């Protein structure tokens, strides 16, 4: 393998980690802003989104260049294919972080409802999943990636429980209908974050073990 190709792959890996680092931070900022009802803190989420989008375009360009000029095979091809998917997932997580940040203002005056729903409890699990999925990519850790896939069920169950709780609150007080609706949307966003983290983890298993495990294609408990 010649030097130039190695450099291209290394740059691709480094940029994926840079994008992952930004998304990880962006998610942390938006969850904390939601919990604290801090509208000002959301500005940084929007600023970071610009950078994440920049990386999305940059990675697309780099992947196009590698595919067109280098025609990678085997493990290198898997890295490039995973990079295409991871880039997409990370960009989507960035968008969801923005969506969550947009719920901060309508929920600002209802801190008690937000705290009682313990939205951060679910957010922490989802964020940890994203955090671990990026780690599993950096360390090429398929075992960790498989654990993340199993975590998704935990978030789904939390979503169902919290959804029922918010509906109950909305029924008990008409004042809470509007913030409750926003909260349900935020819960749905968090649940999506966990789904994207699972997708990244599945990509990592593909990258490391060359096995496809999405949609239970293989036994993830193996």
């Amino acid at each position, binding site marked *: 393998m010649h030097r130039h190709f190695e450099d291209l792959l290394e740059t691709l890996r480094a940029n994926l980690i*840079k994008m*992952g680092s930004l998304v990880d931070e962006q998610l942390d900022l938006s969850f904390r802003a939601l919990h604290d009802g801090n509208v000002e803190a959301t500005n940084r989420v929007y600023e970071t989104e610009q950078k994440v989008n920049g990386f999305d375009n940059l990675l697309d360009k780099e992947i196009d260049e590698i595919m067109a000029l280098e025609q990678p095979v085997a493990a290198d091809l898997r890295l490039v294919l995973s990079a295409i998917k991871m880039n997409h997932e990370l960009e989507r997580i960035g968008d969801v972080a923005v969506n969550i940040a947009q719920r901060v203002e309508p929920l600002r005056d209802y801190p008690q409802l937000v705290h009682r729903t313990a939205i951060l409890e679910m957010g922490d699990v989802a964020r940890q999943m994203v955090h671990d999925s990026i*780690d599993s990519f950096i360390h090429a850790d398929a075992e960790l990636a498989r654990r993340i896939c199993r975590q998704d069920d935990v978030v789904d169950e939390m979503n169902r429980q919290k959804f029922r709780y918010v509906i109950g609150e909305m029924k008990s007080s008409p004042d809470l209908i509007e913030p409750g609706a926003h909260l349900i949307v935020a819960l749905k966003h968090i649940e999506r974050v966990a789904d994207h983290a699972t997708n990244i983890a599945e990509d990592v298993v593909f990258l490391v073990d060359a096995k496809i495990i999405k949609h239970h294609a293989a036994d993830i408990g193996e």
Partner: protein
Amino acid sequence: MNRLFSSYKQRLVLAIVLGVLLYLFLGQLENMLSLRNALVHYGLEIASAVIAVFFFIFEETYAAFRRRQGSILATIIDALRRISAGDLSVQLPEAGGVELSKIGKLTNQIVANLKDDISKLKKLERVRSEFLANVSHELRTPIFSIQGFIETLIDGAIDDPGVNREFLQKAYEHSERLNNLLNDLIEISRIESGEMRMSFRYFDITEFLRTIIEEMIPKAEKKSLRIENRIISQEVLVLGDKERLRQVMYNLVDNAIKYTDSGGIIEVGFVELPDSVRVFVRDTGSGIGKEHLARIFERFYRVDKDRSRSVGGTGLGLAIVKHIIDAHKSKVDVKSELGEGSEFSFLLKK
């Protein structure tokens, strides 16, 4: 054959008998073929004698070879017996036939490896017992102090407004030290058991160091020290585990504060290199003697025991720093002059 004719005399008799038989056989052959030539007759006599002599020489050489191999094999068996009994001072001769010398060499190699493993295990065992002794000593010190203050309070000092608050405060400080020590111990055992996974991310080193400096200024000011910000660049992204590096920087700056006398200066910053940045913490403190430099990253190693106790470190800070920086595939560099100050620095990939 060798057992039957194991002695020199037996082999000699055998060669003579063989020679005679050969001579008789050739005589018969001569008669049957009706060869009446004196030259042929003498030729056959000489051939019988030569064959008998060569047979004897071959037998003798073969016997000597067998004897030598046998003695080497006996040495090897004896050596292996001694090794299996635990005697590792055995050294086998690397001689004999090709196979035997190979066996000798390999056995010597196995013994050398065993010796290495045993000495490593012994060293580990010594480090472990030293570590345990250090831990119990370090734990006991604050516990005794806490007990001492509480006992004095129970014995009546609690009603003495001149000292009661002070003693409680001191007991609290020692309990805090105990807590720090336990936290560091948990941390180091997690790092060493490989339980701790690094979360490498790109982050802005400028903002990171500025935050550390801001957070450490109050502590430095308490000791009338000045922390100087030596950051000259704008945003520079580096790859590392931000939380672990925060711990590294706290430990390094905290050490600088502890070992620098009032009025001193601590500098924190980084130098940008083509592919990396060198993060540094400099102080104008007491410095570290050359003989200690190689050992300061060992757990519980103290340059000056009394001073360390008075400043209240856990003795694990630099060991933790080293582990974290090692996990970043980097190395902590130390430059120090006694009485002049120290500089701790490490590289981070851009």
